[in-house]
């Protein structure tokens, strides 16, 4: 049910813990601030983070004639969200599913949700190059997918996995819209000394090596992770993170 969705963008990483879901939610909120109608689909079935990050835990998904109605962040219905997190009875419950069952769920999320008219559908994925990723690619065949945004941290232990994610995109024909280097540098609030806790520059170097666009750098800013449902570009407008989110939104919407 993606016929009325103008742009589909995947958010990928090879590595876990790099901030993919935080980037996905902040990008969705940034686009909403710019008055686009946005959808955010969370296909991380084992670790669905989107409901928590958008403060939507406990919300119910309703069935309509055409399919499932997504959860909206507020009454103006500018940001629609779907996640397996909404279908769990208890937030501590594990989804212990093998590949085939995960594949079926991903397909359902893509075909049975009444997204309505959307300018942008962002799809947040788990780390890796496996069932969820293969299934989403298969389900998106025939639907125009703008491409993928890939998130990494600067360390080689991260970029090493992200290189494989770029290969996945090339093999499956997904254009790489660009790479984001997250957790790049920490400025001490006391003395303003900047420490590259997870190294620096690895994302930018990988973008050059793999010949994909570099979308920008997000520094470590503990405030961003605690924004929960609020747009960084609105709450922390002067922060380096807000600047980068605005730039990325600009690049993907032009």
């Amino acid at each position: 049910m993606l016929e009325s969705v103008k742009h589909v963008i995947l958010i990928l990483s090879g590595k876990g813990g790099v901030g993919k879901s935080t980037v996905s939610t902040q990008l969705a909120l940034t686009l909403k601030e710019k008055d686009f109608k946005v959808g955010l689909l969370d296909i991380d079935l084992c670790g669905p983070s989107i409901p928590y990050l958008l403060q939507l835990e406990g919300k119910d998904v309703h069935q309509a004639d055409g399919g499932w109605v997504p959860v909206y962040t507020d009454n103006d219905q500018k940001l629609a969200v779907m996640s397996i997190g909404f279908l769990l009875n208890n937030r501590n419950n594990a989804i212990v599913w093998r590949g085939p069952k995960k594949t079926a769920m991903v397909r359902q999320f893509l075909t049975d949700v009444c997204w309505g008219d959307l300018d942008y559908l962002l799809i947040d994925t788990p780390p890796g190059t496996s069932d969820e990723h293969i299934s989403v690619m298969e389900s998106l065949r025939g639907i125009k997918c703008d491409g993928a945004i890939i998130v990494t941290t600067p360390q080689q232990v991260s970029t090493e996995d992200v290189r494989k994610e770029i290969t996945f995109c090339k093999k499956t024909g997904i254009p790489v819209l660009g790479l984001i280097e997250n957790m790049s540098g920490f400025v001490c609030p006391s003395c303003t000394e900047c420490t590259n806790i997870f190294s620096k520059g690895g994302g930018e170097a990988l973008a050059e090596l793999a010949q994909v666009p570099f979308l920008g750098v997000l520094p470590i800013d503990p405030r961003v992770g605690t924004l929960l449902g609020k747009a960084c570009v609105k709450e922390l407008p002067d922060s380096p993170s807000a600047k980068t989110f605005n730039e990325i939104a600009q690049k993907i919407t032009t």
Partner: protein
Amino acid sequence: VAVLDIDICGPSQPRVLGVLNEQVHQSGSGWSPVFVDDNLSVMSIGFLLSSPDDAVIWRGPKKNGMIRQFLSEVDWGNLDYLLMDTPPGTSDEHLSASTYLSQAGLTGALIVTTPQEVALLDVRKEIDFCRKVNIKVLGVVENMSIFVCPCCKRLSEIFPATTGGAKKMCEEMNVPFLGSLPLDPTIARFCDEGKDFINELPNSPAVKSLNEIVKTKDDEDSLPASVV
């Protein structure tokens, strides 16, 4: 000790253990793991890929087949500890590890988290997974807990523990809390370069904490063990 890296899509152990370009050899007795040291060996799909750009784009059944091969066809020799490094999640790799080792005896699981709620949210599910498949939770380690500015020594929470961090989660979930490891950028660099930070950075607070955690577990376990 041996490390089995069952993160099939994102194998990191070859790099972190400093054996990135090593080869795996086959003999009559099976595959030989790569030796990092006389008493530390490792097996990973990373050794079987010909280029760092090679992606393993496999569905669950094929990943399970690889894990079964690693467990049954590698000549591990006599081991005190087999540590299995898993990818994030509660899916094929984790189910396979617990199923294939159910006969051999899986001592339990060490769970690693960072302090912030978005991580704890997934870790509670991991603990639930362990309970569902009868894997004993040996304990939880909180990684990247605190950062000490090298300039002014101020402590900063990079990943704010707004819901009490791993310690509180462990109390709520009734599992042992093993300790916290502070963030040390030098360790991050050592992992990238495959250097032995345990021996080369003995004064790092993170290394000291890690040694304390290992000492505690070693005192408690006296039998040969496999740990996920």
